[in-house]
């Protein structure tokens, strides 16, 4: 069956791709899972940027679509919506943008509506609502390739006549039929009145209208491929479903640790190498130190997260695009219900064991805002990979390695495992507390659409990876860089005769001495205090700081640092330090990402205060209790 590229008849789009665009700003609207983002990526390629509207957490992309004439049309990708009901935040944003009342967004002069051609009986209802808004609209029936493969069909011309808008059958994945977009943008379409729009309000009538529209277009949806059902009978099987789920999770972990960690380490080495080069190239002095220790180290502490973030998003992207993520949410839902969350929070929380930054970015799949905030708030309690070097160093310095549980599992392993359990337990407790108080969800239920399985497309995966990497590097990166330069300044001030002070006389040491009374109850001295302060940039920074403070190189003299630590901490203080690290939010990257994802400073500041208080109290208790048993 042929696919009409342009439609002749009452609703005319002339076959001219050249010429000036009639529309300058076009909104892309459509239900979730209709391929709206794929289409947007296809049309704009890399000429797009992401942003938040002021005051809402809903994210939107803007991009430009280049016509053959070289002129550009600005496209706004709006959140996926099923209807236009101002009660939901996503749908209110869509309505506000289309009506031109959203601050910061240009009023669109046309709409491209993307529907799933395999689900027209449901999706045409949205077409009715969008067309009723009165803007020139192009209706794209997407996923034509799959519709045909599954034996479905639809005639666009009768549908276009009924709706009073141009309609094209397209595939955003293969590019088939997309010329219709350019044609729509350059031609002034003749817009007759729609023959009949549904009576809004009654779902039965809306659906009957949609079915009637479909039948006039000889619509046949085609059948869900049999292999989706067959795969589900394995992936959601009573026994095998759970086993496969566990295997997938272990594989995700394994990927992050066995590939991501070494990649991060390698990158760190490269960056350190460049730092040494930089230091030797620049004349010694203030500028040298600012560039090497302030700016480069700051930029480096952002960059080292990148391999893990990209890997995690690659893995999650494959799971998501293939359709397995929806099944994983179903399988883990029973478990998550126990802490007041639902299955959609599981994967982000799992990712947080690698790094909280991508985990918090991955919460975008949780539609319910309260559940999403709750997940963001508890994610940093999961033991991330930045805690590991700190744990390893302190445990190696203070915990004697004796057999604990049988001959194989020693005391050190038990302490390490306890720290993982501690973080997890606090996450669960916090989730329960949040979900039964401030973040109690109203009128929300676990409703999960299970899309058919399909092969992930590398191009759309790649674009999403770029998007995430950009968001992290430019939005979070600037904050981290600032913190790192501030820390550098505190270490190098006040200057005496153009020379930086000895570390003991530096501003940071003064701060360390200043906070010492506050941390003495935890068994920490001023040096640990400085280490803690510096670790608020990133947890593992404490190792380098302690190294600097003790005048030893942390890399080559690990043993020396471990010995030196014993002059700062008693064993009880060491336990207190471990507990502090398990709970405290010492990560500028995480704070920056929480700020970005929640679109404001309210949540990151509350989260920071909460986690710091919890860490302080727990650390104090741990110190006093350990003192009773271990002097």
């Amino acid at each position, binding site marked *: 069956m042929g696919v009409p590229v342009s439609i002749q008849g009452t609703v005319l789009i002339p076959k001219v791709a050249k010429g000036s665009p009639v529309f300058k700003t076009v909104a892309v609207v459509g239900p979730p899972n209709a391929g709206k983002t794929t289409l947007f990526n296809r049309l704009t390629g890399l000429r797009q940027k992401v942003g938040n509207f002021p005051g809402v957490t809903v994210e939107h992309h803007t991009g430009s679509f280049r016509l053959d004439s070289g002129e550009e049309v600005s496209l706004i990708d709006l959140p996926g919506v*099923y209807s236009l009901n101002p009660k939901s935040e996503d749908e209110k944003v869509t309505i506000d943008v289309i009506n031109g009342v959203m601050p910061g967004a240009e009023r669109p002069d046309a709409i491209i509506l993307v529907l799933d051609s395999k689900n027209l009986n*449901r999706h045409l209802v949205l077409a009715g609502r969008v067309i009723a808004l009165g803007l020139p609209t192009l209706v794209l029936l997407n996923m034509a390739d799959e519709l045909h493969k599954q034996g479905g069909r639809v005639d666009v011309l009768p549908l276009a006549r009924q709706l009073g808008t141009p309609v094209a059958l397209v595939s955003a994945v293969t590019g088939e039929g997309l010329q219709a977009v350019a044609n729509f943008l350059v031609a002034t379409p003749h817009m007759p009145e729609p023959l009949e729009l549904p009576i809004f309000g009654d779902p*039965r009538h809306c659906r009957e209208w949609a079915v009637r529209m479909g039948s006039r277009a000889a619509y046949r949806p085609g059948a869900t491929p049999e292999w989706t059902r067959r795969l*589900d009978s394995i992936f959601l099987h009573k026994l095998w479903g759970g086993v496969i789920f566990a295997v997938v999770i272990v594989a995700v972990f394994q990927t992050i640790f066995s590939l991501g960690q070494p990649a991060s380490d390698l990158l760190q080495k490269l960056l350190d190498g460049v730092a040494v080069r930089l230091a030797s190239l620049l004349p010694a002095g203030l500028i040298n130190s600012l560039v090497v220790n302030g700016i480069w180290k700051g930029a480096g502490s952002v960059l080292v997260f990148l391999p893990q973030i990209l890997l995690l998003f690659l893995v999650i992207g494959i799971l998501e695009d293939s359709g397995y993520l929806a099944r994983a949410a*179903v*399988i883990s839902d029973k478990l998550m219900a126990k802490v007041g969350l639902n299955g959609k929070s599981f994967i982000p929380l799992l990712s947080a064991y690698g790094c909280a930054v991508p985990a918090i970015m991955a919460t975008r799949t949780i539609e319910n805002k309260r559940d999403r905030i709750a997940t963001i708030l508890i994610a940093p309690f999961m033991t991330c990979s930045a805690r590991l070097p700190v744990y390893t160093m302190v445990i190696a310095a203070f915990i004697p390695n004796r057999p604990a549980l049988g001959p194989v599992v020693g005391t050190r392993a038990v302490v390490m495992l306890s720290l993982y359990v501690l973080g997890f337990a606090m996450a669960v407790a916090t989730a329960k507390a949040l979900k039964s108080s401030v973040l109690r969800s109203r*009128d929300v239920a676990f*409703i999960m659409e299970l899309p058919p399985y399909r092969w992930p497309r590398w191009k759309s995966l790649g674009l999403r990876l770029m998007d995430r990497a950009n968001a992290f590097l430019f939005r979070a990166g600037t904050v981290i860089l600032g913190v790192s330069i501030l820390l550098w300044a505190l270490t190098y001030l006040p200057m005496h005769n153009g020379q930086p002070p000895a570390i003991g006389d530096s501003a940071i040491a003064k701060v360390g001495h200043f906070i010492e009374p506050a941390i003495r109850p935890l068994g920490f001295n001023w040096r640990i205090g400085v280490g803690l302060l510096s670790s608020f940039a990133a947890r593992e920074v404490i190792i380098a700081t302690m190294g600097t403070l003790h005048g030893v190189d942390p890399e080559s003299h690990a043993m020396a640092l471990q010995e030196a630590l014993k002059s700062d901490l008693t064993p009880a203080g060491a336990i207190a330090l471990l507990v502090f690290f398990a709970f405290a939010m010492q990560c500028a990257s995480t704070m920056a990402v929480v700020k970005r994802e929640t679109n404001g400073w309210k949540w990151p500041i509350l989260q920071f205060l909460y986690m710091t208080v919890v860490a302080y109290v727990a650390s104090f208790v741990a110190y006093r209790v350990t003192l009773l048993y271990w002097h």
Partner: protein
Amino acid sequence: MLFNFMKARPARLGHTLGDLAVGESGILEDFDMPQSIAEHLINLGFVPGLKVLVARSGPGGNPRVYRVDGTEVALRRDLSRCIAVRPLREQEAEMR
């Protein structure tokens, strides 16, 4: 209004979607839940008058997967007990 599905035991509904066994189907009749959730279900295809089939249950028996209007949607048991259906007998189900 805060709606607790765990405690809501809709007395006014006769048969509910939660009462159907895997493989059984029924005709959707009514929702006993807040408007916003009912609307979300309707958007996903749970339109009164349509046939819904209990396609399978998850590994833990909850949530279960329902097939309606060409798509599959997973719902927890508590929510499915707030959806009224008219159960279809086997021959009837095949005819539809």
